[in-house]
């Protein structure tokens, strides 16, 4: 009789038969499941790479050292205050091994030399990616869970910009990007807050349009708005890609809205016809090209970029305005960076003729505008508001719009899922930013951002600067950040200050941290030069360096102005470090002078950069020293020889670590060079 319960068709009995066998199979299954975790660990990528590393170093001569440095297992750099949990060094094992310079395979390459220790900041601070990940894919690529892939090396300087708020000498790309943000008016529409709480400021003001009818014609405005680069290849203004009838209405509004300034238009100056070559030579000797560029016959731009390009200025400027501008630019624009040259009437007429000849009739050949109607003018005004023209330009009656464009303070870590990409474009943040700068209007219909003409390198620089604007940078502890030095708002006081503003000294010279870098820093000029030389220099500026094409223009200053300026410079711009009169300007013993000569030509070989004897010396780098004894003070020469960088940081002349005796002898020799340098130099 069979037991009633033993049903041989139970499902597990069908599968396994014997209960013992069932137990065995289930146990095996369990064991196998338990083995998954250790097996996964054993076959993990980082172990694979660590084994590869050990194979790589085994055959090298310094294997023992490298093996001693090697730490098996997952490695981690942990800086909670920086948000860094980096396990990258688990696979990138040779990162710090100086002897692995010849290894080119990843992940074993040595890290290129940088000023920071890898342990100090970890990896993701600069490279992005997922520091905590332990697989190649997760650490480097953008996966479903992570949006932060490794940053391409071409943008790596954005990492520097997170802590270094001011420019660093060794990050040219980041510096260029930040400068472009200021110069091209990006920061006029977009707010960009730096982590120290300040907001990036524009470094160049677009011209005011409140009085534009005094300066140019409606036809020129039309041609300019149509394509600014057609007028000047180097124009800062981008192309807004406006329709012809919109340009017609904007130009109508700007002319109608313009108010006249008294004195910025003057009648022709009756002068005798000047030599045709006089214009070019006046343009040359006034050093206009230091700031303004002109396209030459070969199509290359020659000149500086402080002021606007003048290739076609004759097509733009009204003669009566240009005349007044050349005579005194401050009447039309009190804030202009252009100096008030104090030209004579003859010079004004010569310059006017020279500039007006720089014209291009083709530019306005096809521009025919009917008189503006009130509807056109009011439509023009609404367009000016719509396109935010007043963000950059002052336009009377229209306020500068606020928050006109998206805030870019955190653009550097914007989530990729929030971005809309163009088809065919890689889905990464740097590609998005670069694409937006390259062709802003392509991303959606109706966008207002204008078309710039940046080069590829400029776009990469801008992208680098913008990538540095991220949450990490905003939240770094103050201990690791390097703040930018406070901006200097130095303005000299009194009558001298007025003259210096009128001459726009700060466009080229820096004093107390404010000003341009085209000409020497004048912060300690009063300790440096002799008064007589300074006054002569104002009267007739010459270049001090033989290879320099630029020099200070001649401003036709009056004797009274020269006295005021010299008084101020000699009194105010003195270094606190030494007394200007502590060493005499002449009367050194002949033996000391001779000793100095020996040192100059043999031990220190100064003639490789400087000229003392015009016939024998040829050095082209430093200033000519033929008349240095009449130019500089003895104390300045002595302290300069002892440590040039202390007096002018960043100057090229090397510090020779000179003994006091040598410095004194060289000072004696140099102060004996009273030379008639001007005649020699002219010859």
């Amino acid at each position: 009789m069979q037991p009633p319960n033993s049903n041989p068709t139970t499902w597990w009995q069908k599968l396994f038969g014997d209960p013992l066998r069932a137990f065995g199979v289930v146990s095996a299954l369990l064991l196998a499941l338990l083995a998954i975790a250790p097996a996964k660990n054993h076959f993990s990528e980082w172990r694979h790479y660590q084994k590869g590393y050990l194979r790589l170093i085994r055959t090298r001569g310094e294997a023992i050292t490298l093996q001693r440095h090697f730490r098996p297992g997952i490695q981690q750099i942990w800086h909670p205050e920086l948000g860094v949990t980096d396990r990258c060094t688990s696979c990138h094992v040779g990162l710090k091994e100086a002897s692995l310079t010849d290894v080119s395979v990843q992940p074993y390459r040595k890290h290129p030399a940088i000023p920071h220790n890898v342990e100090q900041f970890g990896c993701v601070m600069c490279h992005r990616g997922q520091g905590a990940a332990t697989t190649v894919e997760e650490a480097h690529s953008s996966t479903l869970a992570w949006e932060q892939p490794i940053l391409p090396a071409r943008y790596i300087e954005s990492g520097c910009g997170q802590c270094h708020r001011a420019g660093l000498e060794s990050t040219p790309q980041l510096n260029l990007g930040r400068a472009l943000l200021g110069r091209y008016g990006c920061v006029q529409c977009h707010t960009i807050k730096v982590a120290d709480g300040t907001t990036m400021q524009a470094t160049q003001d677009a011209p005011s349009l409140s009085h534009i009818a005094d300066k140019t014609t409606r036809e020129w405005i039309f041609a300019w708005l149509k394509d600014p680069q057609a007028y000047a290849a180097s124009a800062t203004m981008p192309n807004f890609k406006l329709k012809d009838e919109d340009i017609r209405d904007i130009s109508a509004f700007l002319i109608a809205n313009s108010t006249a300034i008294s004195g910025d238009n003057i009648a022709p100056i009756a002068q005798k016809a000047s030599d045709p070559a006089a214009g070019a030579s006046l343009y040359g000797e006034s050093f206009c090209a230091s700031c303004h560029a002109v396209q030459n016959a070969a199509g290359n731009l020659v000149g500086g970029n402080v002021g606007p390009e003048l290739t076609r200025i004759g097509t733009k400027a009204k003669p009566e305005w240009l005349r007044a501008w050349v005579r005194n630019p401050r009447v039309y624009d009190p804030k202009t960076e252009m100096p008030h040259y104090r030209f004579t009437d003859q010079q004004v007429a010569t310059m006017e003729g020279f500039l007006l000849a720089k014209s291009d009739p083709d530019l306005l050949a096809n521009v025919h505008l009917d008189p503006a109607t009130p509807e056109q003018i009011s439509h023009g005004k609404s367009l000016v508001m719509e396109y935010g023209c007043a963000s950059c330009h002052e336009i009377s009656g229209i306020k500068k719009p606020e928050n006109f464009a998206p805030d870019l303070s955190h653009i550097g870590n914007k989530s990729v899922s929030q971005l809309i990409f163009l088809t065919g474009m890689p889905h990464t943040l740097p590609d998005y930013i670069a694409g937006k700068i390259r062709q802003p209007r392509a991303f959606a219909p109706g966008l207002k951002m204008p078309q710039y003409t940046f080069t590829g390198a400029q776009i990469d620089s801008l992208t680098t600067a913008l990538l540095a604007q991220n949450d990490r940078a905003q939240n770094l502890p103050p201990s690791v950040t390097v703040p930018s030095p406070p901006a200097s708002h130095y303005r000299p006081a009194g009558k001298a200050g007025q003259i210096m503003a009128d001459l726009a000294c700060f466009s080229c010279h820096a004093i107390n941290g404010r000003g341009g870098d085209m000409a020497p820093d004048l912060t300690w000029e009063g300790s440096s030069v002799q008064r007589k030389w300074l006054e002569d220099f104002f009267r007739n500026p010459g270049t001090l360096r033989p290879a320099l094409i630029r020099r200070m223009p001649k401003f036709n200053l009056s004797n009274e102005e020269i006295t005021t300026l010299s008084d101020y410079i000699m009194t105010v711009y003195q270094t606190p470090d030494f007394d200007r009169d502590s060493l005499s300007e002449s009367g050194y013993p002949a033996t000391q002078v001779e000793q100095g000569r020996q040192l100059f030509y043999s031990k220190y070989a100064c003639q490789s950069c400087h000229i003392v004897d015009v016939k024998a010396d040829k050095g082209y780098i430093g200033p000519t020293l033929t008349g240095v004894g009449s130019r500089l003070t003895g104390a300045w020469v002595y302290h300069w020889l002892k440590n040039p960088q202390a007096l002018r940081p960043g100057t090229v002349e090397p510090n020779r670590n000179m003994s006091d005796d040598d410095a004194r002898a060289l000072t004696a020799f140099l102060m004996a060079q009273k030379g008639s340098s001007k005649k020699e130099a002219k010859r």
Partner: protein
Amino acid sequence: MSTTDIRPLILILCLLSIDTGCARKSASAAGPAPTAFGAALVESSGGKQIGATGSVLPQPLVVQVNDDQGNAVPGASVSFHGPSGVTFDPSAGVTDSSGQFSTNVTLGEMAGRYQLVASTTNKAQKKVELKVDEIALDYQRRWGQLLDEKYCARCHNPESTPERVSNLDNLEVKPHAFTEGETLNKMSDADLMSIISHGGPALNRSPLMPPYGYTLTKSEMQALIAYIRMMGDPPYQAPGMVYAQK
């Protein structure tokens, strides 16, 4: 019955192998079909450029396909190859009406000389190649390049520009250009460090070379040396380690 026992195990092993295995992606680039064949490839422009690692070279690389008479051949195929990390945009195509083909080169992420190879096929279906060198500078060498511009190039670079007139011809003892591999490659890093920091007399050379040891920091001088090493022609080879023989 026995086969059913191991089935779950096989399943698990399969899962494991999928999990730990890695998938390799392969890419192949095929240019448009050529309509003509040339006999030689020449460089038009874009060789010997210096760029930052991982960056796009400032100028495109332009090569020209010529026939055996030296005339340009339009419609010939050109393809570019380079060491790992280098990308070309586009990497292959056919020459334009002037027989030229231009590509934008993105350098790899490791500093060094990159030898790029442009190739075309001739009538006999054989490959004709052209090798072009480009130089990639990493952070340290770019820093060296900036320091060279500021402190060294005015005497050591014989080329003059309006902004930087070369002082080389003014010197009685001519400095060596940093491209002079024959001379500079013979000097060790320690020699270079010593002549930069102590001046020419440190190595019995001209005192016209001043010392920079009190002006530049050690890491700045190291950056300069790393940069100088990259400029040498023929290229500098770091001395290998000398090991004791067994």
